[in-house]
């Protein structure tokens, strides 16, 4: 079983971005970039499935600028077998990404596509579901546990108020939630080895996919900031403020 794992290069998890002063977007120049954390979890799970013998090959894919190959090298260092970079000018929308991935799925014929549930930059939480829709495949989103049983994927999903388990025919789409696993750190020898693993580069424009954006960003603004609060000295003062000033208890 082959697993396709799309990974996205995003501003590092620990960095708080600033809105550009002209309101056209957020400032990303010079910031540390990393693999989207949910995608790391997806890579880890795919590699574990291969290590358990449930999968034979893990192919990482990234779509974006040339530097996304660093993200792919990280995936390779974590244990992916080979990588494909689809070059596009800017970060395409989930709809376009899903269409590009569909082309790759038709070429690579994986039985599982394993994605992070959302990217922490645009917070769309959409690509996996959209790819599933375009392919007509079943989807197991927000996965906290994945097992391959009798040629089906049993996916335990995080839902409001708890969890549920669904059983999907293969091929299928799975998207990873936070608690699916703890991704490994790539060891130095594996980072060195990753440099020798195959990385193929494709031109997004050659894939016959319309990348036209459907959403125009009108403006990007800072969220309204909360006015500075006060430090209270005692529980009694807190209770008094909550009762008489804030009137919430």
């Amino acid at each position, binding site marked *: 079983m082959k697993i396709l794992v799309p990974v996205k290069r995003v501003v590092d998890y620990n960095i708080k971005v600033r809105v550009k002063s002209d309101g056209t977007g957020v400032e990303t120049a010079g910031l540390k970039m990393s693999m989207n954390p949910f995608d790391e979890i997806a890579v880890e799970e795919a590699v574990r499935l291969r290590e358990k013998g449930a999968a034979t090959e893990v192919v990482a894919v990234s779509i974006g600028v040339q530097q996304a190959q660093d993200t792919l090298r990280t995936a390779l260092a974590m244990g992916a077998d080979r990588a494909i970079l689809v070059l596009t000018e800017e970060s395409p929308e989930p709809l376009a990404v899903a269409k590009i991935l569909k082309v790759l799925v038709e070429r690579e014929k994986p039985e599982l596509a394993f994605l992070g549930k959302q990217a922490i930059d645009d917070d769309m939480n959409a690509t996996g579901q959209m790819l599933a*829709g375009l392919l007509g495949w*079943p989807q197991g*989103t*927000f996965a906290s546990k994945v097992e391959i049983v009798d040629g089906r994927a049993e996916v335990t999903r995080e*839902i409001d108020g708890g969890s549920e388990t669904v059983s999907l025919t293969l091929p299928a789409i799975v998207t990873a939630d936070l608690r699916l696993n703890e991704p490994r750190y790539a060891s130095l020898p594996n980072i060195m080895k990753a440099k020798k693993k195959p990385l193929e580069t494709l031109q997004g424009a050659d894939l016959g996919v319309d990348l036209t954006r459907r959403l125009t960003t009108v403006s990007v603004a800072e*969220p309204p900031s909360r006015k500075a609060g006060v430090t209270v000295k005692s529980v009694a003062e807190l209770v008094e403020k909550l009762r008489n000033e*804030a009137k919430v*208890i």
Partner: protein
Amino acid sequence: MTVLVFVETEAGQVRQASRSAIAAAEKLGDVHALVVGDAAASEAAAAAAAKVPGVAKVLKAGADVLAHDLAEPLADLIVSLAGNYTHLLAASSAIGKNVMPRVAALLDVQPIPDVMAIVDADTFVRPIYAGNALATVKSSDAKKVLTIRAASFDPAPAEGGSAPVEAVNVTVQDTTSRFVSQHTPTSDRPELESARVIVSGGRGLQSGENFHKYLEPLADKLGAAIGASRVAVDSGYVPNDCQVGQTGKIVAPELYIAVGISGAIQHLAGMKDSKVIVAINKDPEAPIVQVADYSLIGDLFEIVPELTAAL
């Protein structure tokens, strides 16, 4: 314009998150509410949806294949009904987030998740970067597929309306996805997303036992829901669905009491729209203190019992 809202119900009432989606839809046009389930469940859900003022018509889709809100048949159903509508909406709930992007892909539409404000019929405000920036986006798609951030829209009332119910002929089928089981522990506490008061704990609690011993009595006193930071969930103090933050629940209660939570940006993203925030923390420099209306600096193991006793 007429707008279709996929509506979730629970215990004979439309869920609050769905009533927020209905409220958002009212800003766009006439509201038709879609309810699904097996025959009996869809009947009960339709009765609940018909009572929500602002709903002009209820579409009831009853079939066994729709019993568990599986994305595959549900998306096909919504797509089959989409022709009549300019906008397709759902709450940004686990179900809405699972289904609506699939619907959008099938319609060749770029979905707009987590809508916080509606500027006009094509233009919407949504959070990016864990809510550290708000993007106003204009869609060129002929149909819009939106999920609605519940905390940003006052919910429509649960009662008072009497919309007509129309049964939908369900022809969708699915053989790819099968429901196996569900684990949703019942609780007497209010749901996080609709609670008026939330008592939330973090790393500072140090153990699940301390959640039980210190936070629960306080929550009991206040009739509050219990939330948690990611660290508290990852450490196994409380179940996953307690997590408040970028990738957990987005909440906006009247009162949010953060106990032993430092306030990572991902956590703040999930609760900073709360009306009043109280921070109980030993560190006066903690980020949570910067957003709190009232901060009490000290040992939570002394403060929390004292607060519980004082209420």
